[in-house]
């Protein structure tokens, strides 16, 4: 049994129903944990000598709003030919599903030389919420601030949840899939007012290369099973 498989078995034995294994590449290991159990599971993963994940390498938010939606239908042509790939996507869902946002952490055990990816779906959508991991790993501090800034994910128990990457006074969460790439406002210097002014963007949003999802049989054996998501 490979090291990854034996780690997976150990985690499943120790944490049981609190975690669910996710499909992943054979060289990686990923688990999903419910938001209610997140802190407990992380404490076990950090403190149990069998796992010893001393380091939180990375923590990032993800927005699944447009997951699996292509901008260009390739399997069937319409009567007027293929679409141009510039049509707007369907409006976002009702927001009650609660599985739009997730937080993914990458853990590293330096002493045992192994990695683990942990995904935790957020509670609710507006705002999405999840428990903070700052008390488990101090390095989570800025990573969580970043996820809050870019995705609007609120981390309960975070000591200092301020914006970090965007401008002072920025409105919105730019990495959400429904936030346009060109943003909502642009700035310019106004010589009459003698200051920099904010104005609505003048750029028309456009798609240069449409997103295309193709069925490609060549890649089937790579994943051990067809992933339900991600």
């Amino acid at each position, binding site marked *: 049994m490979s090291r990854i498989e034996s780690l997976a078995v150990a985690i499943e034995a120790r944490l049981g129903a609190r975690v669910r294994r996710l499909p*992943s*590449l054979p060289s990686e290991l990923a688990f999903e944990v419910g938001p209610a159990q997140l802190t407990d599971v992380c404490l076990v993963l950090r403190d149990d000598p069998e796992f010893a994940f001393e380091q939180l390498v990375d923590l*990032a938010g993800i927005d699944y709003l447009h997951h699996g939606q*292509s901008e260009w239908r390739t399997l069937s042509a319409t009567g007027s030919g293929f679409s141009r790939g510039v049509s707007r996507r369907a409006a976002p869902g009702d927001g009650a599903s609660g599985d739009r946002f997730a937080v993914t952490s*990458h853990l590293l055990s330096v002493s045992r030389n192994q990695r683990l*990816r942990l995904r935790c779906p957020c509670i609710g959508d507006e705002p999405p919420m999840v428990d903070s991991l700052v008390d488990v790993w101090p390095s989570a501090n800025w990573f969580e601030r970043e996820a809050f800034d870019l995705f609007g994910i609120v981390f309960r128990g975070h000591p200092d949840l301020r914006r970090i990457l965007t401008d002072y006074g920025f409105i919105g969460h730019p*990495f959400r899939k429904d936030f346009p790439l060109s943003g909502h406002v642009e700035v310019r210097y106004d010589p009459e007012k003698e200051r920099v002014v904010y104005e609505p963007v003048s750029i028309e949003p456009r798609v240069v290369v449409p997103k*295309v999802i193709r069925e490609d049989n060549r*890649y089937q054996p790579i994943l051990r099973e067809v992933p339900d998501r*991600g």
Partner: protein
Amino acid sequence: MAEIRNFTLNFGPQHPAAHGVLRLVLEMDGEVIQKADPHIGLLHRATEKLAETKPFNQSIGYMDRLDYVSMMCSEHAYVMAIEKLLGIEAPLRAQYIRVMFDEITRILNHLMWLGSHGLDIGAMTVFLYCFREREDLMDCYEAVSGTRMHATYYRPGGVYRDLPEQMPQFQPSPWRKDKELKRLNERRSGSLLDFIEDFTDRFPACVDEYETLLTDNRIWKQRTVGIGVVSPERALALGFTGPMLRGSGLAWDLRKKQPYDGYGKMDFDIPVGVNGDCYDRYLVRIEELRQSNRIIRQCVDWLRANPGPVMLADHKVTPPSREDMKGDMEALIHHFKLFTEGYTVPAGEAYAAVEAPKGEFGIWLVSDGANKPYRLKCRAPGFAHLAAMDEMVAGHMLADVVAVIGTMDIVFGEIDR
């Protein structure tokens, strides 16, 4: 009697010692720092969001612009993440070329770090010495990719082209005397590998020169010994990687522990510090310069003996040769599809990490089966290091802030992304 209160000092965002655009809000008690609050994001360009709107290959160039002093290492992580999802592996020669250029990049980065760190805390000469050697290495970048910094040289499935047989030479110009031209071109008479080999012969003596200027320098030691001490346990908890972690005494190096591409076949050592202060981290990086030189030499020897392809022949992912396109319809179609739509990557997630000069640079890539990444997250080593700024400078003097910024090897391209 007047009331004595702490006062707040604003450092940056435009400050020569801030290494870019760092704004630090410092709470001072006299000259002692009580609390440091870094404000970052002044160079935020939303690289990850931009990458989500482009075919995979078009974002390789963005990776250069993240950490703009260790360009090819960031490319390497991105390309590796795509290769992991596609389930392909670069040809052996391409792997060796990548290792060689990763190490050239490491030297480039550490020289930049050494020069600017020295300059920040009062050593002018070492900066000039470092940039002398950097010039040669940037010429290697130019020879292989056409640009001196933002190379876009690595591709999923290999590297863009093989090493050139002829090192580009300086051309005669009215501003350069013949004698100087001859001196400059003397080392450039052979191939790129000859030039790099000559560099590896010269470089250890150059490192000795830097060490003569700094290692036993009284002022240098006064400014770095005992400054910004981090214990190994704390370094792990704070997410430190790379020389910041090794300076605290943990022999953790992804090149050794989780070898990628050709690193498993290389012979080199991992230097570690003892005290976890700025001086130890300096010593670690100096030794890394020597070790990188060793690795480059091993790559040069191997690359000389083993010619071969540098790019996979799978034209669903890599472009066909121009020659094939002239006569082969299928090659033409492949080329057209690759350069308009790009290739689709199977649905799934991958995390690829490389030992970048600053620490672990990771790419978390989520694909939903499209020709663009669904989510791309760049794990920048400097981000975690700068987050520990408050802890590292609390209780130190104002002048030590500059030493700590220097020792973290901060580059805002990767922190702000």
